[in-house]
């Protein structure tokens, strides 16, 4: 995690201990992070996690209570929104409903009192860039969701910003359209190489678009890393749960007759070396279900009742309950052992080296 002392060199956007309170409650609580030039970063977290407040502070809509915002090494904390060069694309796009596509895109230039001829030239260039020529005279409500998104992008990009801010631009859309529009953002980013910040609560959206993802919870930065690192090495139980891990278990080392065990939820897993007391994540796709009584070497196992089988199409998800613990596993549809029915006693096992140690969590 980047710290306050880290040099801002190389950072395009740097947030320093940024804090914002509403009615005594810290919506953003001392967040520091650095975004490299040309990077596509997602701010991911549950609603109420502080991500939109953070974005609004960067855009200049909300004044921070403490901390600083640096763009290209320069503090912009006291600058008005439009001087920061941070263009915002809003949730459901916030196109001006009473203005045509042309006037929506031209809005920023009009506010800068750019001459008519120059406005026409730049708007037609911007519309060409987002492939919307010929729709100048339409009104936003006459456009499809995809076209609206491109108008919003053209409107933001026409002022040649240094930073593109996307505030949940894809929520409230149906899944297929989301996927298409998500790819659009990534494509635009590939072309412009513009440093981009995307706020979302959708893990898939964040993971598929972003170079790095910042996970925010309760106003704090929980983890800031590549999607892969976040999924395979979650920094906390919060992150693990948020990115979809469902098996978070407590492991206690034990020793019997010179053999090392890890006690997990009442079952014992054989270890080669002494274990450490910690919380562990067992990735769902590592859990195997078997009717054999023995656990293979290098695996931990747990006997229990097969409680539930969910068919998800490509995957089959199952739950094994043993005492107070429930383990959730997933396997590919064609790998599902035929004939297993809910209610039977089975064994769930998983490779020990695939267990993820959750540092800090107890």
């Amino acid at each position, binding site marked *: 995690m980047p710290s306050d002392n880290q040099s801002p060199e190389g950072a395009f956007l740097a947030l320093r201990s940024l804090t914002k309170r509403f009615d005594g409650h810290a919506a953003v609580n001392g967040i520091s992070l650095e975004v490299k030039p040309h990077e596509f970063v997602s701010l991911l977290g549950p609603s109420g996690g502080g991500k939109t407040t953070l974005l*609004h502070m960067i*855009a*200049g*809509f909300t004044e921070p209570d403490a901390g600083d915002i640096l763009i290209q090494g320069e503090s912009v904390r006291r600058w*008005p*929104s*439009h001087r920061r060069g*941070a*263009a*915002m694309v*809003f*949730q*459901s796009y*916030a196109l*001006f*409903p*009473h203005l045509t596509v042309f006037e929506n895109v031209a*809005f*920023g230039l009009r*506010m*800068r009192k750019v001459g008519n001829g120059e406005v026409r030239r730049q708007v037609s260039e911007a519309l060409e860039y987002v492939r919307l020529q010929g729709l100048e005279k*339409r*009104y*936003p*409500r*006459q456009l499809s969701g995809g076209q609206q998104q491109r108008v919003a992008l053209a*409107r933001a990009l026409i*002022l040649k910003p240094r930073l593109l801010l996307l505030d949940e631009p894809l929520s409230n859309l149906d899944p297929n359209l989301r996927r298409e529009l998500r790819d659009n953002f990534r494509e635009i980013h590939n072309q412009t190489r513009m440093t981009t910040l995307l706020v979302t609560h959708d893990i898939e959206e964040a993971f598929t678009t972003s170079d790095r993802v910042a996970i925010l919870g309760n106003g704090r930065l929980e983890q800031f890393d590549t999607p892969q690192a976040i999924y395979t090495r979650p920094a906390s139980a919060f992150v693990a749960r948020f990115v979809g891990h469902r098996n978070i278990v407590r492991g206690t080392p034990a020793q019997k007759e010179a053999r090392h065990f890890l006690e997990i939820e009442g079952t014992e897993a054989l270890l080669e070396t002494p274990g450490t007391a910690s919380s562990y994540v067992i990735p769902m796709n590592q859990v195997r279900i078997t009717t054999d009584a023995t656990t293979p070497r290098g695996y931990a196992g747990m006997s229990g009742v097969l409680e539930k089988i969910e068919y998800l199409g490509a995957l089959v998800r199952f739950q094994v309950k043993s005492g107070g613990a429930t383990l959730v596993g997933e396997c590919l549809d064609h790998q599902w052992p035929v004939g297993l029915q809910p209610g039977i006693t089975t064994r769930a096992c998983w490779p020990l080296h695939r267990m993820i140690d959750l540092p800090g969590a107890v």
Partner: protein
Amino acid sequence: MTTARLRSASLIMPALIFIAALFLAPVVQILAGSFVQVHSGGWTLTAGLYEAFFADAYSWGLLERTLRISAITTLACLVMAFPVALLMRRLSSTQRTVLAILLLSPLLTSVVVRTLAWVILLGPVGLINKTLGVLGIAPVALMYNDVGVIIGLTHVFFGYMLLAITASMLKLDERLMLAAINLGASRWQVLRTIIFPLCLPGVLSGSVLVFTMSASAYIVPVLLGGTATKVMATEVYDLAINYLEWKEAAVVAAVLFVTVWLIVAAVTRLAARHERIGEGG
């Protein structure tokens, strides 16, 4: 007609019968009467009374004053209600309710009481002129003229304008304003290019309300205008009650009705066109 449609039609029947019997019938009777001339041989259809009305400069003066007072009242309500509606947007819903109750509580008092209160303030020996006198300033005529009527009407109808504008103001998406600010709009530019055009439907419906109610207002012109500031509504009353000239009264009422209706229709068409643009398609 299917049974379902019959059943839905039956839902509006009580109201329809009530309106038809107690409102439409007398109106039609009076209007018809204004076109009929009874003489010894029977009756003839004639527009003579209307010709007489429009031939008289006094009538034109009445109509002009009525429309002028209504227009100025509408404008005054608009100018005062718009900033308040802007403020309403920024308040929390509790604060908004409190402010709305405070501003609209005058509506709970009878128009007569409210208007008499203005007499105490505006009269020749009213509070304002007494204060001016103490300060050594010559008294000003705030009553028994157009100014008094406009002040009274503005007070009475301000709430309607405020409610209409606030309704469209609260529908505005905050993000539109943030987007405009992000694109470099100043506060004034946000107001002019985003807020005002998008509140136009509320402004128009509030204006239509205030204008029509001002044009037909009776109590305020009587109490604050006196005999010097006659408007169409007071003329109707005078003709019908004091002079028992029911037909002439009907003519004045009909002219007022048609004129206001034409103005409202024109404004509504304008509003409809604006709405279409806003919604597209």
